């Protein structure tokens, strides 16, 4: 059965069942991934995915159901399941099945797989693996050399005239060389991403990964204590990404964000501006409409330390008396409508990282944190994470440190920012965009070591 006739079948059955309105959200994804081991591509995987989610309004309640199967019986099951879901729901839902915004249209031209995709990915991983091994005799192997391309089309169609679709795609790679010295192993990773595989520079990522790996040889813990800390862009991105939920209107509705109702207040240091911009030029993903079909736009969440807005979809905006910021998001076809940032980043300053470290004087430059899924609690803002980096003395980078933890609270960290550098960098695409940050100087955080 074609998708178009499935749509008609669902529409007919939803109407018969007395649904007030409905929406079909569908995704069609294609991914390809290759990994090299000892000079050969030893794993290849490719996935062709499709799923369609039905959201319908019945008796003033929203019901959801999802399937990967297109058949007349499945259309009937989908409607029946969504009705069952609506009956179980106890939230008198806000009717958020929306007519299209005036004058806004988006139609996917269809996703096209890059030419010679497999050989491009293959070249990336083999070159990067070779580059690691050739770079230094202390590199004994490469634990990870992977490259992937993913593309997808998203379509939203509803009973109130909305009919939008678009496509996104990007390439991403990871490289992790291993060095062995004095009975210890060292292994640092670098991730690269680009709009398409031909623009992916996994070889230069390999160079950086080798340098990082070698730089930790002989590293020791730092002394336990409180330090001024400079967070490398990747680390600041990790923290911002992990705690981005504190800016979610949905978290605020659920009582899970301490920023609820604090618009207009100073919640961060005056040097800090946090922006969510779907069209940010330095980022790869540019999302034109959110998962409710609302046209997206850029906005500051924090401007010079003052909270301007949380991120909203239409429902959270209505519940909190705000305006939607077009950040409606489904984390997959089967997920309920939530809220997520597009490209979320701390805006950079004019000064270099070297200048920032000079101003900081003494402290630790953290280049790597691990354990974010468990050691960071988005509800409380607390984090305590395995970390690595370099001591900073007299404004200069000093000896490498590993085997330490860095602990603090994200809400407090926002207030303790003393400055930012000019080296804005974005992490790998995921969700509805990317997280970005320059080097951030924080005074201070707790370090546990010896």
């Amino acid at each position, binding site marked *: 059965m074609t998708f178009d006739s499935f749509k008609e079948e669902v529409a007919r059955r939803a109407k018969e069942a007395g649904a007030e309105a409905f929406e079909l959200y569908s995704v069609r994804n294609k991914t390809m991934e290759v990994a090299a081991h000892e000079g050969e591509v030893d794993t290849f995987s490719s996935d062709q995915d499709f799923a369609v989610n039905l959201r319908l309004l019945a008796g003033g309640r929203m019901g959801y159901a999802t399937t990967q199967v297109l058949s007349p019986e499945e259309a009937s099951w989908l409607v029946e399941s969504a009705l069952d879901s609506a009956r179980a729901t106890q939230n008198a839902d806000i009717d958020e099945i929306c007519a299209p915004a005036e004058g806004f249209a988006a139609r996917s031209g269809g996703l096209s797989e890059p030419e010679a995709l497999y050989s491009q990915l293959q070249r990336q991983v083999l070159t990067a693996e070779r580059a690691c091994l050739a770079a230094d005799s202390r590199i004994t192997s490469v634990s990870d050399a992977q490259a992937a391309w993913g593309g997808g089309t998203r379509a939203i169609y509803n009973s109130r005239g909305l009919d939008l679709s678009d496509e996104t795609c990007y390439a991403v790679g990871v490289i992790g060389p291993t060095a062995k010295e004095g009975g210890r192993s060292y292994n640092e990773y670098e991730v690269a991403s680009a709009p398409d595989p031909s623009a992916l520079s996994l070889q230069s990522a390999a160079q950086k990964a080798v340098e990082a790996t070698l730089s930790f040889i002989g590293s020791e813990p730092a002394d336990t204590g409180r330090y001024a800390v400079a967070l490398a862009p990747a680390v600041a991105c990790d923290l911002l990404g992990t705690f981005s939920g504190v800016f979610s209107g949905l978290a605020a509705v659920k009582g899970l964000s301490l920023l609820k109702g604090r618009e207009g207040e100073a919640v961060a240091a005056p040097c800090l501006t946090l922006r969510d911009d779907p069209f940010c030029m330095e980022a790869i993903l540019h999302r034109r409409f959110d998962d409710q079909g609302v046209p997206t736009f850029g906005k500051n969440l924090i401007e010079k330390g003052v909270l301007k807005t949380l991120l909203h979809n239409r429902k959270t905006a209505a519940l909190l008396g705000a305006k939607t910021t077009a950040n409606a998001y489904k984390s997959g076809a089967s997920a309920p409508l939530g809220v997520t940032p597009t490209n979320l980043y701390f805006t950079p300053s004019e000064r270099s990282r070297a200048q920032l470290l000079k101003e900081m004087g003494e402290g630790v430059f953290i280049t790597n944190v691990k354990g974010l899924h468990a050691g960071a609690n988005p509800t409380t803002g607390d984090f305590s994470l395995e970390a690595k980096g370099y001591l900073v003395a007299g404004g200069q980078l000093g000896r490498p440190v590993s085997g330490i933890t860095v602990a603090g609270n994200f809400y407090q960290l926002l207030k303790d920012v003393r400055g930012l550098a000019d080296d804005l960098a974005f992490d790998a695409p995921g969700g509805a965009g990317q997280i970005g940050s320059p080097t951030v100087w924080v005074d201070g955080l707790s*370090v546990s070591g010896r």
Partner: protein
Amino acid sequence: MSDRRCQPPSPALVEEVLTAACSRGADFAELFWEDTHTHSVNLIDQKIENALRNHIRGAGIRVVKGLRSTYVSTADVGREGLLKAAREAAAACCDGPALVRPLPFAPLQFADLHPCRLSPTTVETGEKAALLHLADRAARSCGDEIAQVSATLADRVQRVLIANTEGLWAEDRRARTRMGISAIASDGVQNQTGFEGPGRSAGYEIFAGEIDVEAAAKEAARTALTMLHAPECPGGRMPVAIENGFGGVLFHEACGHSLEAEAVGRGNSEFAGRLGEKIAGEKVTAIDDGTLPGAWGSTNIDDEGHPTQRTVLIENGILKNYMVDWLGGRRMGLPSTGSGRRESYRYAPVSRMRNTFIAPGPDENEAILRSMDRGLYCKKMGGGSVNPVTGEFNFAVSEGYLVERGEITTPVRGASLIGTGSQVLLDIDMVGRDLAHGQGMCGAASGAVPTNVGQPLIRVREITVGGK
């Protein structure tokens, strides 16, 4: 809601697909087909927020020549879709004349060790909602500072067919049911959380005796309330006692991942090539067991169609075995331990943990605490992660207490533990007697799979505690 009958592909079609998969010179091909229904009902703010059903159906085809493997998955499970996937996987794997043909299928017979007596698909959504309200009320009854409770009831019925060119034909139906309760305590300035997530490889019969929903909810609330009034944990090096149950996440992260063939076979593990060596304290015996009846990480057969096993990894400190999937076994020259797992048809299988635990040891709990002059008692652990190459691991302590002169004193919050796996295993110097398991989701190359972690109370001589 009906449990709709859906037929897997016929033996004739599977044979055609596997023949196509081998048409370019592969020496092995496998088809994994699944039809899965999931249902999650979610409560927050004392109301059912939503109820979500999802029907997943797809297949993945794996083609192997030597140690090179290709995997193509598709949601299109009609004849054309499967053949297209098989041809793509074949072409990406090798380019030569066909060498093998599929052997005639011999259906695998096995006893169902993890039966589902009350299928999730037959339980009314309203009954599920009632269980969530029960949890919510129990958690809120623990004190006015419980500001929010969210609870989820998630179930999954997965039907699988696994067939390969060596004549394997294995079908199974797997049910999993789990409740997650998260309580948030707040004094208006700050929040603290507590979580319990009991689950089994079974159906809704588990809530009629085996799992006490109200007790679990109260436990989550108790953790949140305790932590709300706890000062920050001090950091530094100290002895640590880790409680049974989810405390087993220590072994899971610090050592388990590094004993998976996926890491060992490629030389990406600090324990590669060390079978027969002493890698842990003498009191440490560690087991990974996929056969525990009804346990969260159990299955009758793994996702490569091999019966699961009880695998002794470490015996009295000596490394005895690794967790081995079929391809990892080919790489290492070892037989499969029934450890090939995957989240869904979208992932090629790799070696994964099932129910992993440290076996009971000789020490009394009291003796373990008495032995600590100044240290940390970890009553509840959160999750963690590891880099198997270096063994560097971390995990979060969700409920901790200071131990002073052998006595548990103040609760402390915000602690984490870090170290390297090879060192911490040697530093486990006391092992208690009361083994218990906890449930978690483990994420790795083949997606998120359910795993149990477990242990009795153990003592680690000294470890770095991250705190403030």
